[in-house]
């Protein structure tokens, strides 16, 4: 008897939906906290703005045990290899949240020491801009992440610098005093 393929598809989509629902409400985050955004991260995780009600309350401080990497705060070039290593050590499925404008695009630190956006190093799923983003902003980003997790989508392709539109290329800055 031939297996009804359409029935099989229905089952697997229901299974995927169930898995997605389970995953999105139990986010084990790895808070890679570096700078000022860390204060807003703490504020979002604390009782006023509570991330725990979204299921994202328990940070796991080992990359092996986490599935969402919250990159919170400026990443400098000295820190970049560490970030890449932590990302590589995480097990699939994993998502990355770029928290704060320094991780999205580098912020206003257009200098020799700052990585201009962590998507040049690792693929990013949700960008939460703000300097630092308000906790409501963070929760909005978290909900978007949950929707993404629920649909079971893997991380997007990394945006290569060449693919960025011309306006985003770093403009020449007049050097001070020289």
């Amino acid at each position, binding site marked *: 008897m031939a297996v009804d393929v359409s029935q099989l598809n229905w089952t697997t989509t229901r299974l995927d939906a169930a898995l997605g629902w389970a995953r999105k409400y139990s986010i084990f985050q790895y808070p890679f906290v570096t700078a000022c955004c860390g204060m807003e991260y703490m504020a979002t995780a604390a009782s006023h703005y509570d991330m725990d009600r979204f299921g994202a309350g328990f940070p796991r401080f080992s990359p092996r045990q986490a599935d969402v990497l919250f990159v919170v705060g400026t990443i400098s*070039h*000295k820190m*970049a*290899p560490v970030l*890449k290593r932590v990302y590589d050590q995480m097990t699939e499925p994993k998502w990355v949240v770029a928290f704060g404008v320094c991780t999205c695009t580098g912020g206003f630190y*257009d*200098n*020799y*020491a700052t*990585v*201009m956006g962590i998507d*040049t*190093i690792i693929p990013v799923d949700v960008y939460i801009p703000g300097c630092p983003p308000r906790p409501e902003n963070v929760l909005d980003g978290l909900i978007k992440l949950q929707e993404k997790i629920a649909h079971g989508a893997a991380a997007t392709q990394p945006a290569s*610098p060449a693919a960025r539109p011309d306006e985003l*290329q*770093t403009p020449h*800055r*007049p*050097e*001070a*005093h*020289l």
Partner: protein
Amino acid sequence: MPNESTLIEALQRRFPHAVLASHHYRGQQTVLLKREALLEVARVLKEDPSLGFDLLMDLCGVDYVAFERVRMSAPTLATPSPLPYYMTPKPMKETWERFVSHEAYRFEVVYHFYSTGQNLRLRVNVPLPTADPVIDSITSLWQCAEWFEREVWDMFGIRFTGHPNLRRILLYEEFQGHPLRKDYPVNKRQPLIGPIN
């Protein structure tokens, strides 16, 4: 007990060969020293009971090579604009000058000392020649100088003889160049991983 105005005089009397110049711009005592005399003067500052500078507040470097090049960013202005008619120039009570030439002495190491016993502050500037930016380390007197001097080496490339551990502190070892020098552009990137821009 020396107070603010006699502190410089006491130093000048004691080290006439070492003190290049002094001023108290905006009420802050500053002394310019020859670099050979730094260690000796620092020791006296710390150990003399009437001076007693037990806290080294800050140690930093300055690169004076571009000091005279006041560049207008608006290309249409060739000369600095004069004050408009409604602005009366504020009478300058005091002026400041560096006392050494910027080309010959490009770098300067600035020490800020504080005496907890007498609540006195002193700034010591040591100009360093451009070709040879080397100076004695005062780590043997104040322990905090170790990290401060590492930072000055990292940012300016000024060497400290006698420093126990002179390596980069704020940047990674593979970094080429010394970024706070005026000829290092602010957005010249040397990433360890990832693209340049």
